[in-house]
């Protein structure tokens, strides 16, 4: 069976999962390696933040966490393909709420046609007109 791929805003990591009646359960060590959230007695922790996990076997069971519950916990949108064994987690809701609150323009890094990366933050100190277009 091909590995299950978890896409963290597009960045792929192969993760260990159990699939039970349509529910994807991710091994907590995989959650740490893919997303940087470590399962501790106080909950899922990253840096100095811990999100408590209810002692509910429907959420965490046997060192595995149900993917849909994890997405809810982190307030991240989830799209799942059981057939192709892949799931995509979008940016946390808090990121956008923070943008609206602080009005800080979210930084990004994209390549030009030669593959050279450019970031918005390189242009701090100048006014920037960000113009977004497409050929379609």
């Amino acid at each position, binding site marked *: 069976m091909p590995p299950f791929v978890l896409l963290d*805003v597009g960045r792929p990591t192969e993760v260990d999962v159990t699939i039970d009646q349509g529910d994807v359960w991710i091994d907590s060590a995989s959650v740490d390696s893919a997303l940087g959230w470590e399962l501790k007695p106080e909950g899922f922790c990253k840096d100095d933040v811990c999100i408590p996990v209810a002692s509910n076997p429907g959420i965490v069971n046997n060192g595995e966490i149900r993917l849909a519950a994890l997405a809810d916990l982190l307030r991240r*949108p*989830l799209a799942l393909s059981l057939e192709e064994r892949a799931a995509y987690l979008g940016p946390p809701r808090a990121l956008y709420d923070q943008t609206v609150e602080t009005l800080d323009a979210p930084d990004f890094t994209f390549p030009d046609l030669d593959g050279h990366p450019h970031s918005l933050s390189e242009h701090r100190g100048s006014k920037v*007109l960000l113009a977004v277009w497409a050929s*379609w």
Partner: protein
Amino acid sequence: MVITVAVDRASDARPWIEKAAPTHPSLVDEAHHLGELYNMVNVPTVVWIDEEGRIARPNDVAFTTEWGGKYAKVSTDEQMALLRSWIRGETPSQPEDVLRGQIAAMPDESQEARAHFGLGWWLLQSGHTGAAEHHFHLGGELAPDDFMIRRGTMRFRESDPFGAEFVQMVADWHELGHSYYLPLPVE
């Protein structure tokens, strides 16, 4: 400083960029991450960002051509005059509460739709074309106002983004009483 970003496949954006031969950074965001970060649903759209890296005007439809402006019901001359005045420092940025009010609300469904786009894009890269199309479709159903998904995936689905599917999509959208472009209100 102008930065342009094409939410497009590099191969589709390339001829346009090469013809324009810009001197400013001209970037390609194939995976539509800008949509996720800035809550963008259509192109063309511009954001003004000040020297401190803060949003001075949230993303707003803008055209450089008269026909485009007419279609989107924005005045390209007025937009350009406003922009020049802001760049010269003659017009300050809007007060923060006004800016916050201008930023479009983002329902959870919109980000969920973008997650389906992101999954679909990865599936497409992995050769799972059918599964990719399914997730592009789900994204469009969740967020029918997201034309970066609905129109921006047409080429991936062997459909012409200037053809019958597009014309029908816009006609249906208008029928429901919506606009294809949503300019910010003019103060």
